């Protein structure tokens, strides 16, 4: 047998356990599959219809992907707070296992859920006329960029779950912050018409830039019926998207791990 670092081995055991939980809990599976389908159809037809038809719809898809995986970070919040509340985390903490495994196992299994969401959304998108026009390497890179972003957002979710005093607080906090963050972006509309502070935020918002990066890599229109983006992040969408995800991970992994060490059962 090859030597697997204990932290990775323990994380994979925890991820296995999480996935079994998700598989056997229909509510979860529903949020992971039906919600993305709803997002694609709602946004594509409600917004797409009034804002420019087929081309706009194609433009929208990448934004919906990014928004959906961002919202999937709330699964991390809920999963972790449930485990804390039910004493499962206590059982883990009294075991001689790696300290990061509970968190890394959770963010890994949530990455798998996001992957499922992305596959479903892609199929759904293809059905309504979205096409992947980039070359295969770029398309693959696009999906990897998206999953990296999903993983980064999941660590933010882990941190929110660990700092919340109650499960209820965690659940609403885990969702609430996502609304301003995903909507103050140019995922759906141009940031250029927003007031200056919002415009600056939207331009540098990783959500905006991840969507831009996906469009670039998928060969989808970057802007439809809007002025072309001219900010630095927009012009360096792929590296900025990857860089911002790495920064989020670099910040929230140590924060969450430090917090996890101190958190007592609630």
């Amino acid at each position, binding site marked *: *047998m090859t030597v697997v670092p*204990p932290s990775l*081995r*323990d994380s994979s*055991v*925890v991820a*296995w*356990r999480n996935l*079994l*939980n998700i598989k*056997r*809990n229909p509510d979860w599976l529903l949020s992971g599959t039906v919600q993305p389908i709803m997002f694609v159809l709602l946004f594509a037809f409600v917004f797409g219809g009034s804002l420019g038809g087929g081309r706009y719809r194609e433009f929208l898809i990448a934004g919906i992907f990014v928004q959906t995986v961002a919202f999937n970070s709330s699964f991390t919040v809920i999963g972790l707070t449930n485990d804390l509340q*039910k*004493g*499962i985390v*206590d*059982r*883990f*903490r*009294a*075991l*001689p*296992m790696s300290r990061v*495994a509970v968190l890394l196992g959770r963010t890994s299994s949530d990455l798998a859920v996001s992957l499922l969401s992305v596959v479903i959304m892609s199929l759904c998108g293809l059905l309504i006329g979205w096409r992947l026009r980039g070359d295969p390497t770029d398309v693959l890179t696009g999906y990897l960029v998206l999953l990296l972003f999903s993983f980064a957002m999941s660590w933010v979710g882990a941190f929110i779950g660990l700092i919340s005093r109650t499960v209820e607080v965690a659940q609403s906090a885990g969702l609430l912050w996502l609304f301003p963050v995903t909507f103050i972006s140019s995922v759906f509309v141009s940031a250029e018409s927003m007031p200056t502070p919002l415009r600056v935020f939207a331009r540098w918002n990783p959500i905006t830039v991840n969507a831009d990066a996906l469009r670039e890599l998928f060969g989808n229109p970057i802007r439809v019926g809007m002025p072309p983006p001219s900010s630095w992040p927009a012009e360096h969408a792929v590296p900025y998207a990857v860089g911002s995800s790495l920064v989020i991970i670099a910040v929230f992994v140590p924060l969450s791990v430090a917090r996890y060490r101190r958190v*007592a*059962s609630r």
Partner: protein
Amino acid sequence: MTSATAISAESLVKNFGTNRALDGVEFSAREGRVLGLLGPNGAGKTTAVRILTTLLRPDAGSASVAGHDVLTEPHAVRRSIGLSGQYAAVDENLTGRENLYMVGRLYGMNRPDARRRAGELLDGFQLGEAGDRIAKGYSGGMRRRLDLAGALVARPPVVMLDEPTTGLDPRGRMDTWRLIAELVDDGTTVLLTTQYLEEADALADTIAVIDHGRVIANGTSNELKSLVGGERLELVVDEATELDTAAEVLAGIGSDTPRVDAQSRRLQVVVNDGSKSLIEAVRRLGDSGIEVHDVGLHRPTLDDAFLSLTGKPTEVSGNGGTTDVAEPEGAATAERAEWGGRQ
């Protein structure tokens, strides 16, 4: 040959806000023995267990388990312990087998070993049949057993069981007692918390009685019993109206304030002269025209000890006869608390 100390807690203090959950708790257990932490709800038992299992840091004091300091070598402590917490931490969406397999893997066992051990434990805990069913459908007793099995997966030298029988029916409790006895036969050191006096009496080699975050007494079951002094005279009178007179008569014979249980018309008093006191009591009661039943002497139970030590009855009573009892004397309580400080 004296065996080494497997569990020790020294002057543990833990505050939750302004609430002092532990106020200088001290106890120890030698290898292969059962230490019982006995105390009512809110005494601090769970807090002590959480500190010993590295889940909580004490504000002051120190503790070690299997020779490892809980603060400086928490990982080594975790390798040496198995924990079954007060509330069964069973993963409801996994089967019993998957629960135990997961714990085995997290103790570092390889896949085949973890699988084999899970099977052994399921059989040993009468969960063989239910082993492949999702734990959500398990009864309270089955969950408790599964949680207990989880503590034993890695055959740790020290096992901590926080109220392992609370919420179990009498049969479940007897089964658990048998399992704990088997553990001890294998040389495992067990720390067990309980609110049940009979449980501590039946299982523990040494008992630390905890109340309000302090150890108020510490010793073997027999030592605790002898704390309460001599034998007890117990009797039942015919009519409730005779209780007051009977209590007065017994006060003149016994060495403490008689305890009166109005409901069962039962009176109890500590006596120093055994059968002589008994005969004297029956004679004097007869003189007062009181008819007595069920008169007898018995050695003090742990229940009696607890009452004397804490000044109040426990929630769960061993002999069902301690409702509506009189307060023991304050002086005696203080003296016994003093005894508890040593050892």
